[in-house]
């Protein structure tokens, strides 16, 4: 038989009669335990509270722009991390890959004269290819050598950061093309949307579409849900895992370029908690650490909750350290909700 359609079998039998009631109950349980919906409401509540307390300072276009710019690189990392975590994996190396890719990009752009859009494009490609290479190494070690993702990416976290310091002698490289800083770094698309945010937005939309609507996304869910089942139906699980880690690495490379545009130097020491922040954002957004469940929209919300908290606390003159405490609490709550959801499902 051609692999296009299931063959109809003969005869018909009525489905179970109680389908309506139990279906409603299932829907109710699903909505009540839908962590993405819950966390979205939480974000709206946060925005409402800060806006009510400091309308003049918080609820302004400028301030929302600042929050978005701060969130942009994390969002790019978070999109890749969402794919990784949906496969029931983890990528601790993103911060180091970001730094390493930025260093390579600066080296390449400096060698090319550090001026003009052509150099910026080449630098971006170099950063993304560098990230891709790290991702391929991660993926190959995880899928082929069967080393746990936690260990592989912990290893490349160290190796990437160490490598970046070896190349630079531990001193941050400066000198990026003027265009990158003045246009991409501080400029705005149509005078409204900061370029950095626009880039992150495009990555997010493409990621969300790929996850929800394409075969690539479907395999990502299937592998996280039951890798053995995916293998048995003929999905090349190893190759798909390598692709997913490569995607995460490549996006970390892009985030490295975003970081260069924003900070104008390689900020080697500034990304040691990017991995944990990205993981927290993804998990807060309702993606399950056990795999098989997750959304990009949830990750967007998960990125913005810490960003809004940070910004709101500063405006309210609350010690911003409270943000880290609050994010920790939300993170634990998110995982707890995920557990409840799984238990509810298994009971049915």
């Amino acid at each position, binding site marked *: 038989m051609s692999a296009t359609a299931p063959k109809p079998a003969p*005869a018909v039998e009525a489905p179970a009669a109680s389908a309506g009631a139990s279906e409603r109950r299932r829907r109710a349980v699903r909505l009540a335990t839908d962590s993405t919906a819950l966390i979205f409401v939480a974000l709206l509540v946060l925005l409402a509270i800060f806006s009510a307390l400091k309308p003049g300072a918080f609820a302004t276009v400028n301030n929302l722009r600042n929050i978005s710019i701060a969130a942009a690189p994390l969002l790019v990392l978070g999109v890749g991390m969402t794919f990784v975590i949906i496969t029931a994996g983890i990528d601790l190396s993103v911060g180091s890959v970001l730094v390493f890719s930025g260093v390579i990009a600066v080296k390449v752009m400096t060698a090319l004269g550090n001026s003009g859009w052509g150099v910026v494009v080449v630098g971006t490609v170099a950063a993304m290819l560098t990230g891709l290479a790290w991702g391929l190494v991660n993926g190959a070690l995880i899928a082929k050598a069967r080393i746990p993702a936690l260990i592989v990416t912990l290893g490349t976290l160290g190796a990437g950061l160490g490598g970046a310091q070896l190349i630079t002698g531990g001193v941050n490289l400066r000198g990026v093309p003027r265009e990158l800083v003045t246009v991409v770094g501080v400029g705005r698309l149509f005078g409204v949307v900061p370029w950095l945010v626009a880039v992150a937005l495009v990555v997010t939309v493409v990621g969300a579409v790929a996850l929800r609507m394409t075969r690539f996304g479907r395999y990502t*869910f299937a592998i996280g849900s039951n890798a053995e089942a995916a293998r048995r139906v003929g999905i090349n699980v190893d190759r798909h895992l390598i692709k997913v880690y490569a995607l995460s690495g490549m996006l970390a490379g892009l985030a490295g370029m975003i970081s260069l545009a924003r900070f104008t130097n390689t900020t080697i020491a500034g990304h040691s908690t990017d991995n944990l922040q990205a993981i927290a954002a993804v998990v807060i957004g309702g993606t399950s650490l056990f795999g098989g469940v997750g959304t990009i929209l949830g990750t967007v919300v998960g990125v913005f909750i810490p960003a809004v908290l940070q910004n709101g606390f500063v405006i309210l003159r609350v010690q911003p350290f409270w943000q880290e405490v609050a994010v920790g609490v939300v993170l634990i709550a998110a995982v707890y909700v995920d557990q409840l959801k799984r238990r509810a499902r298994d009971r049915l």
Partner: protein
Amino acid sequence: MTTPLLQAHGIVKNYGHVQALRGADFAVQAGEVVALIGDNGAGKSTLVKVLAGVTHPDGGEIRFSGRVVSLPSPTAARAMGIETVYQDLALAPDLDPAANLFLGRELVRPGLLGRLGFLDKSAMAERTRTAFAEMGAGVQSDTAPVGSLSGGQRQSIAVGRAAAWASKVVFMDEPTAALGVVQAGKVLELIRRVRDSGVAVVLISHNMPQVFEIADRIEVLRLGRRVARYRPAEVSMEDVVGAMTGAVVQEEVS
């Protein structure tokens, strides 16, 4: 007797020092239910794995419609119309029934979007509804993750998936082991429908009354060899159990 649809001859499979199959024979015709039975360790599951392309035999010959074939992978077996329902069902619990039915065989949209891998979800959902309705595999929800459905529903989805894609042979490894009486009855009904559509069904089961209820033929494995073949109407349960335990040997293996 016509040429069997799928035939194994002298299959040998060793796992280290363990001889799982020592020259096993097996045959199934189109449109019949064959129960493959045997004590634990008789080699039933290994034989099914060999015939489903999951494991590779160390010796012996597999014929499909009379031609000698090799089954290097489950994909190769599926391309011939051979499907398997595994004991653990091999479903993705977080995906809905349609996604499971089409897992690894997703339909994509026509044109450029299709080449980019965009899924045709509505077509898959539609065909899933039709397929399950026609098989009488009453699946309650189209959109709920499979893991949130009852054991019987999950089983129906796994069996229904195999039945929907198999054009030649379906292997089922203990398809009713985890089910209650009513649900098991539904699965048996589904097996009959699949058989009546001309597909060969190979059933592994320890449940003797069930085997006698549904099987057109019984093949008994013992210690990695086929030791007997029966028609349920012509034999008693004692005879079959005797063959399983070695008290009766019908076929002498050279």
